[in-house]
Structures are given as structure tokens and as C-alpha cells.
């Protein structure tokens, strides 16, 4: 009995010794990088789309490997819920905001000094009306909206009756398509199939069957490397042009009668994180990459089902120059 009683004690002593050695090792290695303050924990938000996953895992890889940060990932619904969570200190960094921070309800967080808008992350987003390229070849007049006029019936579907169907985007995304259709006098019916996976399911199926389909789509998007899509040119932009339908702007819909603009995708961080003195702040501020870079990583993750950590590692190893710039070296 007494023998078996000493065993846990010995084990505990051994464990204690290990902990002490480990702690010494950690502090020693921290000394080795004495020029930098220790990084601590950084929490990144991961949006629901593949491009955002690519951002998060590449930044996570760099922060962990180069600065020894501990990186957490949260996945929260966009816009107010996320900004509130950031204000509450549950998330430090949002790497890809499609202008939600510009909404009036969310500007409060910036004005009160809780959140900081860091500006572009290097990726320029663009929304438009797309058709498969094979269809564009078959009907070259689809290059512009004027050419689409009179040809709407080729897009007929069970939901649209005698009209052509316009497949709308995810309801949470910026859009004004129903208003555009009316303003341009097109014989199209706006049909939404909801969240993005559903919309992709719908148009990619038509694509596989080589059927005509006209839909709301955007770049950068990793699927654009797998599917050949062409954009229909919409009326040129004017100064008072608005991209997101808002009933409060009144019933004069002519303000929507123009192509979508270029969206500068932004980074948002909390001021608490900015003041933390962590070296991660500098990296996040300098972090920028192109739509092409993002698509490469997103395609590995969502297209090829590669583990996101590995996909990030692969890209970082292939692009040492870009990573060096982020690290400020």
C-alpha cells in the first residue's frame, strides 16, 4: 500500500521539475528576442467566406511562427454583432470588412473611439452581373446591358414565368439589383435563393449543364478560378450613384441606375489592441495582399479541401518577400 502511495508523489515531483525546466526554457527564449515586447494573445475574426479564411490563417501563421503570439479565432456574424463583440474585447482584429463599418449604426463604434478603421487590406472588391463565358460567346450582345434588352427570355426559369430570371446574391451582401432591373426597363424577375452556398449551388449547376444563367457575383472569389465567368457592362457611374438599396433614400430609384463601384475592403481593429504595445499590431497595420494571393490560398482551402493551416504555410513559404514586408524588416 505504502509503495503505491509514493508513486503519485514521485510523479508529481517529476511533473513539477518538468514545469520548472519548461518555464526556464520559455523565458530564456523570450530573452533571445529581447528587442520585442512579448506578443500575448490575439483574437482574429473569421468571416463566413473562403477568402476571409485565407486571410485569417495566413496572418495566424505569421503571428505564431514569427512573433510567438497565441492566436485565437472567432467566427461571428458580420456587422453589428461582430462590432459589439469587438467593443466588448472578445475579438481584436477583423481582417476583411466589406464596408459594414461605414454603416451609420456601426460608425458609433469608431466615433466613440472603441474601434479603429485601418483602411484597405489590399484587396479591391467588385460586384457585378455575370454570365458564364460560354454563353457570352454564344450571345456576344450580352457584353452590355443594352444588348441584354430583348434577350431576357433566354434566362427563363420555373420561378420567373414568362420573364427571364436574375439570380440575386446573398441577402446580407450589398445589392440594388431589383432597383437596377426596374430602372433599366429590363424584362427580368429578381429571384433570390438566399445564402451564398445556395446561390452557388444554383448557378454552378446551370453552368455544368451549359444552360443560360444571369446572376449577381463578385471578385475576388476563389470559384472564379474554377468557373469561366464574364461580366455584363452596366451604365457608367455618376457622382450621386448609390450601391446599396436603402428605402430611407426615398422612391427616386434613378440613384441606383449605374454599375457597382469598387469596394475597398478594410481592416478594423479595437483601440484596446492598438494600445496593447504588442508587436502584432504593427504586423496587422502593414499586412496587405492582393486579390490574387487571396484566391490562391482560398482555392487550396475551399477548392481542394486542404487544411487551412497547411495552405497558409505553403503560401508563406512561397512568398518570403511579402511576409518580410509585413514584419517590417
Amino acid at each position, binding site marked *: 500500500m505504502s509503495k503505491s502511495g509514493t508513486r503519485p508523489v514521485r510523479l508529481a515531483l517529476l511533473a513539477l521539475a518538468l514545469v520548472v525546466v519548461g518555464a526556464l526554457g520559455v523565458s530564456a527564449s523570450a530573452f533571445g528576442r529581447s528587442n520585442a515586447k512579448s506578443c500575448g494573445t490575439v483574437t482574429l475574426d473569421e468571416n463566413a467566406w473562403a477568402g476571409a479564411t485565407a486571410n485569417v490563417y495566413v496572418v495566424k501563421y505569421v503571428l505564431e511562427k514569427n512573433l510567438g503570439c497565441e492566436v485565437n479565432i472567432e467566427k461571428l456574424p458580420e456587422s453589428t454583432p461582430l462590432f459589439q463583440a469587438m467593443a466588448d474585447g472578445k475579438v481584436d482584429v477583423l481582417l476583411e470588412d466589406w464596408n459594414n463599418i461605414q454603416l451609420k449604426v456601426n460608425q458609433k463604434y469608431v466615433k466613440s473611439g472603441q474601434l479603429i478603421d485601418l483602411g484597405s487590406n489590399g484587396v479591391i472588391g467588385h460586384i457585378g452581373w455575370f454570365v458564364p463565358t460560354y454563353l457570352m460567346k454564344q450571345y456576344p450582345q450580352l457584353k452590355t446591358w443594352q444588348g441584354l434588352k430583348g434577350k431576357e427570355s433566354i434566362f427563363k426559369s420555373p420561378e420567373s414565368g414568362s420573364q427571364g430570371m436574375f439570380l440575386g446574391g446573398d441577402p446580407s451582401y450589398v445589392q440594388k439589383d431589383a432597383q437596377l432591373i426596374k430602372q433599366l426597363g429590363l424584362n427580368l424577375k429578381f429571384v433570390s435563393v438566399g*445564402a451564398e452556398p445556395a446561390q452557388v449551388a444554383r448557378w454552378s*449547376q446551370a453552368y455544368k449543364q451549359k444552360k443560360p444563367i444571369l446572376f449577381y457575383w463578385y471578385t475576388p472569389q476563389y470559384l472564379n478560378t474554377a468557373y469561366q465567368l464574364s461580366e455584363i457592362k452596366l451604365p457608367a457611374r455618376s457622382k450621386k450613384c448609390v450601391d446599396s438599396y436603402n428605402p430611407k433614400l426615398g422612391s427616386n430609384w434613378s440613384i441606383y441606375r449605374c454599375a457597382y463601384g469598387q469596394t475597398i475592403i478594410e481592416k478594423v481593429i479595437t483601440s484596446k489592441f492598438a494600445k496593447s504595445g504588442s508587436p502584432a499590431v504593427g504586423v496587422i497595420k502593414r499586412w496587405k495582399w492582393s486579390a490574387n494571393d487571396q484566391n490562391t490560398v482560398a482555392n487550396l482551402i475551399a477548392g481542394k479541401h486542404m487544411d487551412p493551416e497547411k495552405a497558409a504555410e505553403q503560401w508563406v513559404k512561397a512568398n518570403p518577400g511579402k511576409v518580410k514586408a509585413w514584419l517590417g524588416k
Partner: protein
Amino acid sequence: MSVIADAAAASATPSLLVEHRPWWRSRVTLTAAIVGVMLVCYFALKAEYPWPASLTWNSLPTYLNDFQTWLVDQRNAESPSFVIRAFNGFAEFLDSLVEWFTSFLGWMTWVGVSVAGVLVSLRFGGVRASIWALAAFVMFAASGLWAESMQTLALMLAAVGLSLLVGIPLGVYAGLSTRFERAVTPVLDAMQIIPAFAYLMPVVILFSVGPGAAVITTMIYAIPPAIRITALGIRGVPANTVEAALAMGSTPAQTLAKVRLPLARRMLLLSVNQTILFALSMVVIAGLIGGKGLGDVVTSGLNSYPALALLAGLVIVVMAMALDRVTESVAERTNPARRHLTDERRRRLRLASVATGIAVIAVVAVSRLLGVGADYSRTTARDWLLARIQSVLDYVQNPDTALFRVTSWIGDHIVQYGLVPFRNFLVETPWPVTLLGITLISLAVSGRRSAITTFVMLAVIGVIGEWASAMDTASQVLVATVLTVVIGLGLGVWAAESRTFSRILRPINDVLQTLPQLVYLIPLIYLMPVSVVPGVIAGVLYAFPVVARLVENGVRNVEANTVEAAESFGATRSQVLRKVKVPLAQDAIMLGVNQGIIMVLAVVVIGGLVGSPGLGYEVAQGLARSDFGLGVLASVAILALGIALDRVTRGARRAQLEEGP
């Protein structure tokens, strides 16, 4: 899920006193006549009278958005008020509770958790229950989702525990006081009809995101069944037993503690069972607001890796079925009618409990000493499972298969001959005609009180500016309900006549009830690529098992001597079925229709996430675009529509039973 249905069926057992009205005054004829008049108005005055702007409260959305702004200001003020701080504190308490449960499960190690689960199920539920528990742990390990499963389990422990803490005392009170029960029933209805998407935004503003917010969202949905079934159990205690106790001089408190609660024990345990199942159906929604675990895998997998989302969905199903079977068998075992405890048996049971306790402690201690990890991390069947699921998805996505030709044909026809005409009829008929028509149908089917409620609810929908969207949603609900009733009626009658089929139906029922709808909506979109159909079909899949079950119970409960009498007159089996059993089960069937409609409504709203237009879409949009006003108004309209549809189909007899004469 079956208990509510059973309980409801019990209150609608067929009576031999079928009312005899002249044919021209029967429910069916009157309803048909009203619809006929509505059709005439529809064809004569198509789309000429939409709900007028003068009858709409236009400034309401602005007020609601101002309220949201005010709330956000309060929340982020320099020194927040006491109320806000209380909300914060509560959320933080819940956060740490969930974290504590998670780390406790981790501390027990994966071996410890599995052994504890299996042994406890064995002791209190029996061999079959323990096999279910074992199957669940095997599934967690094989899917490679052990850590996520434990996070979900911890979330469930917190949410279910707190729901019962609130629900059982309230349920006991509702069982004792009719007045309280009547007061609380509409609140419970609202908690179950309003889609969780609708209150995600307020929850997030008040409680922020994280496990705490996920627990609160889950509790809103899981408390009602706890209250309802507990109340049912307390009411089910035989009155003469209670009287006897009172006559012998027991105080009301003594009667409650010594007579009512022990006799209601089985129902109390069933309320635990139902609370768990309701809570599990919220796992995915909880994943949206920072509840970690399987729900998170489902929501984030949908975009980038649907096969993984489906796998996580299957793990949720297995977890739900195991929890259901274990708690159900525990409940059955404590049934006083089945328990004949001798002193000897009692002593042996106590010994078994002690042995179980010691074994669990020993296993946990040994596996901790051996350094067993918190999560199972050895070889899994994950890649194999994912490859299988992916091949199913690939097959479904391929538009050249025979299956696709059949399903897309069905989908197209549902749209062309069901949804489009129904929608046009409801949306384009002049609004006064629709309003009066539906109210009159309610009067014919369910009586005066129900008709008044229906009228008020429809008027509310109009005034808040949701008339067109609500009619759109109603058309989807109606089409889905027709399909649900046709399928449910057929399967229910079949199951009543054949025990074998009844046994086959049960696991199908369980899977359809617990598999998160978002998971099967994606394959449905591939198979029926027309926007509204997947939502409608998902509603049918969710609701038909319950309708089938209610019909089955109704038909089976037709009194044996009535059937014998018919048989002795020489009626064939099909004659007995058509002329005796089905007519006598009329009330149960009506209840099936009623429950079916409410369940379909709940899912059609989720269909909004994948594009079914109408109220669900507006709720999703309100959440996605931070438009508080839009989300709230659409949710209110969903609730009003749910109540109206419930009253229309309630039937006169149940209306009388529940609302008093």
C-alpha cells in the same frame, strides 16, 4: 419529440358523440364556399387592392431602429446602468459556466467521459440505453470531432440544466394553478413560434457573443417544453389520490412533495428528455453567435466544406438519439406502475449505484495517471466518412442523373402548380376579401373566439406593413402543409394498421427531427434548384413524422368494441378503416393538421436563409444587415401568422377545451 404529440393526442381522443350537422353546414362545405367567393373576387379584382399605406404604421421601423441605437449607446456608455451591468454579469457567468463544464469534461479525459457515460446509462437506463451511449462516443471519436462534441455537450449541460431550473418550478405551478397556466401558455407559444434568428440580434446587443449568449438563445427555446410537460405530469396525478392525502390531513405542501411530485416522476423525467432534444435542435443557431462546437462546424462548413458540415450534422443526430433513448429509458424505469421494489432489490440497486460511482472514479483516476488526453486524437474514420459523404454530394450535384431528373421535375411542378398560383391568390386577392375570408373560415372550423383572434392577428400583420410578405409565407406554409398532411395521413394510417411499419417509422422520425435543417437544405438545393422548393420540402420533412404519429395514435385509439361491432356486421378491413376508424379519429387528424402547420411554419422561416422569399427572408436580412426594425417586424408577423393559422385549424372541440366555454 413524440411526447408532446402523445399528450396532445390524449386530449383529442375520439368521442362517439360526433356532431351531426346538415351537410350544408359542415366544416368542409362552409370552407369550400368561402374559398369559392374569395376565388371569384381574386379573378375579378386581381392585384387591385394591396394593403393600403394609410392603414400602415410607417414610422414603426424608425422607432425600432432608434431603440436599437439607444440600446447600443447604453451598452457602450462610459458607466453603464445597473441593468446593463446585470446583463453583462449574467452573460459572463454563463460563459464561465460553459467553460467550466468543458474543462471538466477535458479533465475527466476522453476515456473517463466515455466510461462514465456508458456506466451511468447502464445503471439507470439499462443495457439498451448504454449501447446507445457507447454508439455516441464511438461516433464522436470516429468522426474526429471529439473536442467539438465535448464543447456541444458542455453547452447542452449548461443550457438544459438552467432550463430545467427555471422550467420545472414554473411547470409545477402551472400544473397546480389553471389561471397561471392560461396566462403563461401564449408566452410559451411565442417562445416556440418566433424563429431564433429573430432574437439573435437583441440577445447579441444585450449579452454580447460567446457561449453565454448561445446558452440564453437555447434556453428561450428549451424552457417551454420543460414547463408544459411538467404541468401535464402534475395534472395527470389521479385526483382521488390527492383527495385522500388531503383528507388524511396533509398540508398542500406535503401533498405536493409526497404525492404529486413522486407520482409525476415519469413525466418530470420526460420533460428532461424533451428539454434536451429541443436544446439540441438549437445547436446550429447557437453556432452563429459564438457557441463553439458542432454547430460552429456546421455553419462554417456550409460555405467551404459542405461534406464536413454534413458529418457534424450526423454527429448531432447521433448525440440527440443517444440522449433521447437514455433519458427516455430512465423515465420509463421510474414509472411507478412498473416498479415493484422489494427491500432486497432496493439494496441491490443501491449497491450497483455505489459500484458505478467507484468504477467511474477509478477509471478517471487511472486514465489521468496514465496521461490520457482530454480529447480522443488517435486514428479516426474521418477521411473515410468525408469521402463517402462527398461522393453522395457529388452524385446529388450531378445534373445528369436519373434522380436529378425526377427531383427537378417534382420541384418545377411544385412551383408551377402549387406555389405560384397559391401565392398569387393570397397576395393578389383584394385584402379585405382575404382578411374576411380567412376569419370566416376560422369561424366555421374553430368557432367565434378563434375567429376573433384570427382577425386581430391578420390585422396586426397588415398594420405593421408585412401583409404581402406574410401572404407569401402563408402560401408556402399551405403548400407544405398539404404535402405534409397527405404524406402524414397515409403513413400514419399504415403505421396504425402495421406494427412493423410503425417500428420502421420511429428512427426516421428521430433523424428528421434532430438533423439540423441547414444541413439537408444544401443537398435539396442541388436536387430541386428552384428557390422556394427546398424550404418547403424541408418543412414537409420536419413535420410529416409528427403528423403521421398523431394520426397513428388517433386511429389506433378508436375503441375496440366499435371496431368489433362493425366487423360483426360484416365490414371488410378497408371498410372498417374508411367508415369507422378514420371518421372517429377525425379530431386526432385535425390536431395533426394543426401541429403540422405550426411545425411547417417554423421551418419555412429557416428556408428564408436559403432564399424562400417572405418573412423568413426578411428576418435573415434584418440580422445580416443590422436592420433591427426589419427583423423585429418580420418576427412579429411570423408570430401573428402562426397564431392565426393555429386558430383557423384548431377545430371547435379543442378550442372549447382550451379556452373554456
